[in-house]
C-alpha cells in the first residue's frame, strides 16, 4: 500500500471517530424529539452543565462559591480534596435526573398542547438560563476534565500500520487518539443499552408508545408526564457522556454548548426521529468533513470543517428533507 492510500484510510478513521462525538450529541436531541416533538435547543448546554458539575464534584468545589463570597465577603472555594470519579459521576447523574424533573415541573407541564415553536422557544430560554446557572454555580474558568480515560496517540496502532506500507516507501504509521477509540466504544455501548431497554422492558415500550401516539398511550395507562421526566433524564445522562468525552478532549469551557450547532446537520442527515439515523448521520458528517478537508481543503485555503457539514445538510434538505432514516413527511390535504 502506498503512503497516500494509507493516509486516506487514516483520514477516514479519524473522521469516523469525530463522527461518533457528533452522534453522541445528536442522540440526546433525537430522544427528546421522538418522545415529545420538542427540538431541545438546550441539549448542548446540558452537556456543558453536566461536565461542569462533574468537574465541580471531582475537585470538591463549593457550588455558588463566588456568589456567596460576593454577598457575605467570605473566602470559600473548596470543601475538601474532591472525590472518587465513580461517585462524582453517580452524583452528576443524580443532578441531571433532578434537572429533568424540574424541567417537567416548571416548564413542560405549563406548556402542554402548545405549538412546537413555543416549546422550542422555551428550550432556548432554558439554554441561556442553564448557561447562567452553570457559570454562577461553578465559575466560568476553563477546567480540565480527567475521569481516567486514556488519551493520546496509540503507539501500538502506529507500529502495526507502519508495516502495511509497500517496500521502497517511507511511512511513519497512522495516528489514532485513544480517547476517540474509547468514545466510540462507549457510544456503541450506550446505543446498545438504549435499544435493548426500549425493546424489552415495560418502560422502554412506554417510551416508544408515547413517541408514537399520545392519545393511545394515555388510554393504556401511561402517564405522559412521568415518561417525559424519564426521557429528559436519559437525555441528561447522554449529555453527561457527551460532556465527559468533549470535556476530556478539549477541556470544559463554555463554547462546549456550541456543539449543539454541530448536531443540527447530523440530525438533518439522519432524521430527527431515528436513533440509528443520529449515529449514521454523525459518521457521514465526520468522515465527509475530514475527507473534504484532506482532499479539497488545501485548494481553497483550508478550514473547510467549519462549513462543510452545514452545506452538506443544505444539500440534503433539497432532496430528502426527512433525512436518511426519518419518517416520511406526508401532509394530508
Amino acid at each position, binding site marked *: 500500500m502506498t503512503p497516500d492510500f494509507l493516509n486516506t484510510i487514516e483520514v477516514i478513521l479519524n473522521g469516523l471517530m469525530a463522527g461518533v462525538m457528533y452522534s453522541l450529541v445528536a442522540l440526546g436531541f433525537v430522544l427528546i424529539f421522538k418522545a415529545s416533538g420538542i427540538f431541545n435547543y438546550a441539549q448542548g448546554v446540558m452537556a456543558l452543565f453536566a461536565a461542569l458539575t462533574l468537574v465541580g464534584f471531582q475537585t470538591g468545589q463549593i457550588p455558588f462559591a463566588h456568589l456567596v463570597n460576593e454577598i457575605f465577603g467570605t473566602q470559600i472555594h473548596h470543601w475538601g480534596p474532591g472525590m472518587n470519579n465513580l461517585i462524582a459521576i453517580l452524583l452528576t447523574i443524580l443532578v441531571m435526573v433532578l434537572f429533568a424533573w424540574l424541567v417537567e415541573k416548571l416548564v413542560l407541564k405549563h406548556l402542554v398542547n402548545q405549538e412546537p415553536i413555543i416549546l422550542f422557544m422555551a428550550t432556548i430560554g432554558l439554554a441561556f438560563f442553564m448557561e447562567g446557572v452553570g457559570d454562577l454555580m461553578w465559575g466560568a474558568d476553563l477546567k480540565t476534565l480527567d475521569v481516567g480515560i486514556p488519551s493520546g496517540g496509540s503507539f501500538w496502532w502506529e507500529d502495526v500500520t507502519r508495516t502495511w506500507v509497500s517496500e521502497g516507501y517511507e511511512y511513519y504509521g497512522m495516528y489514532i487518539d485513544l480517547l476517540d477509540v474509547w468514545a466510540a466504544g462507549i457510544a456503541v455501548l450506550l446505543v446498545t443499552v438504549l435499544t*435493548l431497554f426500549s425493546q424489552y*422492558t415495560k418502560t422502554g415500550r*412506554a417510551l416508544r408508545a408515547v413517541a408514537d*401516539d399520545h392519545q393511545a*398511550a394515555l388510554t*393504556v*395507562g401511561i402517564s405522559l408526564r412521568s415518561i417525559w421526566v424519564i426521557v429528559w433524564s436519559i437525555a441528561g445522562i447522554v449529555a453527561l457522556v457527551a460532556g465527559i468525552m468533549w470535556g476530556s478532549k478539549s477541556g470544559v469551557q463554555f463554547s462546549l454548548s456550541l456543539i449543539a450547532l454541530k448536531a443540527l446537520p447530523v440530525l438533518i442527515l439522519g432524521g430527527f426521529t431515528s436513533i440509528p439515523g443520529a449515529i449514521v448521520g454523525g459518521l457521514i458528517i465526520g468522515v465527509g468533513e475530514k475527507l473534504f478537508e484532506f482532499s479539497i481543503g488545501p485548494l481553497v485555503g483550508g478550514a473547510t470543517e467549519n462549513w462543510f457539514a452545514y452545506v452538506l445538510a443544505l444539500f440534503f434538505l433539497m432532496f430528502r428533507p426527512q433525512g436518511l432514516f426519518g419518517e416520511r413527511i406526508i401532509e394530508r390535504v
Partner: protein
Amino acid sequence: MQDTVREDEILLEVRNVSLSFGGVKALEDISFDIRKGEVRAIIGPNGAGKSSMLNVINGFYHPQEGEIWFDGKLRHRMKPHQVAKLGIARTFQNIALFKGMSTLDNLMTGRYTRMHANLFAQMAWVGPAQREEIEHRQKVEEIIDFLKIQSIRKTPVGKLPYGMQKRVELGRALAAESKLLLLDEPMAGMNLEEKEDMCRFVLDVNEQFGTTIALIEHDMGVVMDISNRVVVLDYGKKLADGSPDEVRSNEEVIDAYLGVSHD
C-alpha cells in the same frame, strides 16, 4: 350472553352528566348505568354525543355537571391514564394504535398497568423484571391466539389493513384485562365478513372472559343482535333506554333515525 349478566350489580353509573364546549352542549343531563357482565350499546345518529359520552367515561373530557360512579365508588376528576389503571380500557373510532410498533409490542403495551417491576430492575433486566416480562408475554400470546392474529405478530401495525388494525386495537384493550371495555364503533368501515368476525369476538370476549362491554355503534342492526340493553342519544339528550326490542319500537327513536319532523 344473557346468563353472564348479574342484574343487580352495577359496574358503572352515569348520573345527570352535562358536558359543553363553550356554548355548544354536547351532553345534556344524561343518566344511565352499565351492569356487570352485560353488553351495553350506546347508539344514535351522527353528532348525537356518543363519542363524547365515551370520552367522559374514559377521562378525556370532564363534564361540567354530574357524577360518575364506578364499581360502587364515586369517581373524582381523573386523567385518562388514571382511569386506565382503574380498569377501563377502550378502542377508538379512528384507531389509535402505536403504528410503528409490532402487533406483539402493541399488545404488550396494553398490559402496562399490570406490570409493576421498578425502573432499576428493568434497566438491569434482573429477577422480577425478567419474570414479569415472560409472564405477561404468555398472556399476550393467549390473546393473539384468541383473535387469530398469529400471522401478524411481528408486523408493524401501520402496515396492516384497516380491519386487522381494528382487531389489533381490540387485542390491546383486551390485554389490559379490564373490568370495563369501551368500544367506539368497532365495526365502522368494515365489510360484512369483517363485521361478522368482530361481532363474534365481542360476544366471545363477553362470554369467555365475562368482561363488561359498552359499545358505540352506528349500525342499528348489528347492535340489536349483540347487546343486552341499548341507550339511545340524540343531540346530546337521552331518547330511550331499554332492551333492543323496546328501543326498536320506540316512536322517538324511529323518528330520530328516519329524520321525521314534528310540527
